[in-house]
């Protein structure tokens, strides 16, 4: 951690060499004020997706650094395509790191602790790997291990073979780099894309026949760790002055929107507004998991890394806007500003795009469906906390198991929690900081049991959840979450952390070991 502080300081003192002109590796991004296109989709064929992503790097004319997953589609190179799979499929993804190493940037982190997976070596700003966020897949090399997996620039590449469980809930997931200390840089640059597990219409027939839209909301800072102006983008399209991205819908049409919050730290408070009034949105799924029942909400809060899937109805005439409201993250949090994400224009010529036919449901059902009914075998309490030595730092970000010493994550640390396959645990997580945090655990979903000590109004299954900041008086805000480690595929070591990526990079993260 101390080294990291020095590193950040050195960066501040030495300048930002990665802002120097780079090879323009990334595809051009859409112009402001144009119609928003869905990401290019790659659908599984015969039970598998086989694809190659090449991680590239550019700096645009406004000075924003782009990191891009490039995929060679039949007619052009596209950025961060959506991966569409059925439960039981395999994602065979070859990832090549084509970032040109910048020797003026010699800072690096220690090599991963375990047996190397991939190229090994030290983690640097040019190293990469991939986290399949929300997917209930094993934390092992070539699947969803981010502790030991490193792909280095110039190497032949690394092959992921991710086995999507037959019980994987149908819904929206996403992929992004997860190299400790550097996650923020590459996600800030746009290296993130959607994964759709097919079959939502089988579980929530409300969406059958509707036009489906996939929206990935990203965030870009000029310098990601310095609070300041940022842009939110919708499928890579920025707003410029009053030129907002345009979403076309037929008058009165219902569409099924699948929205991923791929921002660094923005808590999205989403609304669709007609004449300035928020209209009901029919919630279908959160974090890839279909809700037990749909529910209407005018506002949907999606923390960083969360996903929301909902039905939107266009006005019968005129236009509407898709917005995120201002959201207070607390006295020491960064301001999340109100932003118009898109203008919704009604036109009879709006295109339709239906979901691809999904595979028949398996007999295995959907994972995690009934585990909340089982008694918890273990209770744990964890808490977020922070300490600031000044307004600009040095800052320490902690997530701590109550009773243990506060410490920031180190790649070679021992797991702070050890449990075993079959365990059902209740974790109470408090936020003792003056800043809202977003708790995320890899490999599993959890069920929200309580909020602030009271039964949760919606006991949804999530993989990321917000815990509001402490107001300086009264009890800390908290959530109580039920964790299901009953699936043998959870065996291994994986991570839980705050999904504000700066916090994660600075060590608000730890390991959990699930023994077989």
């Amino acid at each position, binding site marked *: 951690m101390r080294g990291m502080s020095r590193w950040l300081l050195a960066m501040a*003192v030495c300048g930002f060499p990665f802002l120097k002109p780079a090879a323009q590796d990334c595809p051009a991004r859409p112009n402001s004020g144009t119609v928003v296109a869905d990401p290019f989709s790659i659908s599984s064929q015969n039970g598998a997706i086989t694809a190659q992503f090449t991680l590239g790097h550019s700096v645009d004319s406004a000075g924003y650094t782009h990191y891009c997953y490039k995929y060679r589609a039949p007619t052009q190179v596209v950025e961060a395509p959506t991966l569409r799979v059925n439960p039981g499929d395999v994602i065979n993804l070859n990832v090549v790191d084509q970032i040109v190493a910048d020797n003026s940037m010699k800072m690096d982190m220690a090599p991963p602790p375990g047996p190397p997976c991939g190229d090994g070596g030290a983690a640097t700003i040019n190293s990469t790997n991939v986290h399949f966020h929300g997917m209930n897949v094993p934390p092992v090399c070539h699947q969803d291990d981010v502790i030991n997996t490193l792909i280095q620039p110039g190497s032949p590449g690394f092959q992921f073979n991710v086995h999507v469980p037959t019980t994987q809930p149908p819904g929206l997931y996403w992929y992004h780099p997860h190299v400790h200390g550097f996650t923020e840089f590459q996600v800030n640059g746009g290296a993130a894309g959607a994964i759709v597990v097919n079959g939502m219409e089988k579980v929530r027939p409300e969406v059958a026949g509707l036009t489906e839209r996939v929206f990935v909301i990203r965030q870009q800072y000029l310098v990601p760790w310095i609070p300041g102006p940022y842009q939110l983008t919708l499928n890579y399209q920025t707003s410029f002055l009053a030129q907002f991205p345009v979403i076309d819908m037929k008058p009165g049409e219902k569409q099924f929107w699948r929205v991923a919050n791929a921002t660094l730290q923005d808590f999205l408070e989403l609304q669709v507004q007609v004449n300035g009034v928020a209209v009901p949105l029919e919630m279908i799924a959160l974090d890839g998991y279909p809700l037990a029942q749909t529910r209407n909400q005018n506002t949907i809060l999606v923390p960083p890394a969360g996903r929301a899937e909902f039905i939107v109805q266009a006005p019968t005439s005129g236009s509407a806007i898709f917005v995120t409201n201002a959201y207070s993250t607390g006295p*020491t949090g960064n301001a999340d500003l109100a932003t118009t994400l898109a203008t919704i224009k009604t036109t009879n010529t709006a295109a339709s795009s239906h979901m691809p036919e999904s595979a028949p449901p398996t007999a295995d059902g959907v994972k995690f469906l009934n585990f909340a009914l089982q008694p918890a075998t273990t209770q744990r309490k964890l808490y977020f906390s922070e300490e600031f030595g*000044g*307004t*600009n730092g040095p800052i*320490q970000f902690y997530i701590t198991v109550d009773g243990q010493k506060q410490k*920031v994550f180190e790649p070679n640390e021992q797991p702070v929690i050890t449990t075993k396959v079959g365990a059902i645990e209740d974790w109470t997580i408090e936020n003792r900081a003056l800043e809202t945090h977003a708790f995320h655990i890899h490999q599993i979903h959890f069920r929200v049991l309580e909020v602030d000590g009271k039964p949760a109004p919606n006991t949804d299954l999530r993989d990321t959840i917000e815990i509001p900041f402490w107001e*300086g008086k009264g009890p800390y805000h908290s959530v109580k979450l039920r964790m299901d480690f009953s699936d043998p595929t959870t065996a291994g070591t994986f991570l839980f952390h705050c999904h504000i990526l700066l916090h994660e990079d600075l060590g608000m993260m730890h390991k959990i070991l699930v023994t077989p």
Partner: protein
Amino acid sequence: MKKFLESRFLRLLVLVLGIFATSDLALAQTHYILTNDDLAYPFLTGVGFFTVGTNGLPVFKQQVHTGTFGIGGGYFGMNRLAVLDSGTQQCVFASEALNGFIAGIDVSTLTVGGTTTGSSTDSGTANGIGLVMNGSYLYASFSSSNTIGTFAVQPGCSLTFIGDTSVIGLQAGIINGMAIHGSMLVTSYTDGSIESFNISGGTPVSNGDEQISTATVNSADATYVNAIDITKDGHYAIFGDTSTALSVEVSDISSGKLARTTVYKSTASINSSNIILSPDETILYVVNTQGATVSALFFNKSTGKLSAGCTSGPLAGLSQNWSYLAGITLMSQTGNGGGVYVAEFGTVSGIATVPLSLSGQKCSLQEATGSPTIDPNTPGVLSIGSFPPRSF
């Protein structure tokens, strides 16, 4: 007649002396609360002068522009103000971090006597420039260049730069807090290191006692020293820690070097980046930077031991107006200090007034009605001070 004349003369004499005494007394006793406004470019920064109202609350008097720019933030433990009340001159020195200037303000006229810079490499643009002084020298800690600049105090509240001393924590930390007593200068670094220097010759020379503080060692880097104060007799140095708890450390410096610190820790609040001893050294006031509270601990100046005291309720305006509590100064320069003024850093910066009530070994701190006093000139108050200063 003679009696009359004598009487008139005596009356006149008494009157003249009275006027003199009154004006002199009035000047000497003008109690100012000071703010380093730390305004960032393009706004010219300055020092805010507040008088003290009858209810004890600061009342804004005027801002003295220093002609340069601040940076609007930085380390909590750095005091960006130093006050001189030497009998021959009364000055307030303020650091302006963007340009590396140190401005001296004559308190009697509230005008700038001079501005000075250190060497061409001295810089505090990252996290500010801290100041401490005695009657002869002013020491400036530059957070970007990691140097201590030594300046000789000159008439007219001006300074002359003498030289630089490069410093660094044992884990490459940046200089943060400073305190001075006699020939000893004590420093803290952002990596948890502490160090003392001999300043008998003016320029600091390390005493060779640099060490990682006990709290930092015990917590595996999860706590580190920030602001510093030293007892009147120079026996103990006290450190306020940056921590997720209330944490204070005491080091015996009577040997002329820092001894291993003793840690006093409490869950009464969060973070303790700024501290100040009461004039009678019975109370250590602690700013709970992220706990939105102020604590008072009982201090035994003979043994250097601290014991539990009291903690205020949350100060008004957190989140709506301000984000952090920062600098601290005493309400009174006598006795137990009577409470403290605390800087509030945020979009609406201000000064909180928190009087102390004491009954035997029980105390209470409660924010005064009408507090905080808004500083109309800045959103960036980190450092505050008092004129006249505490006597040690």
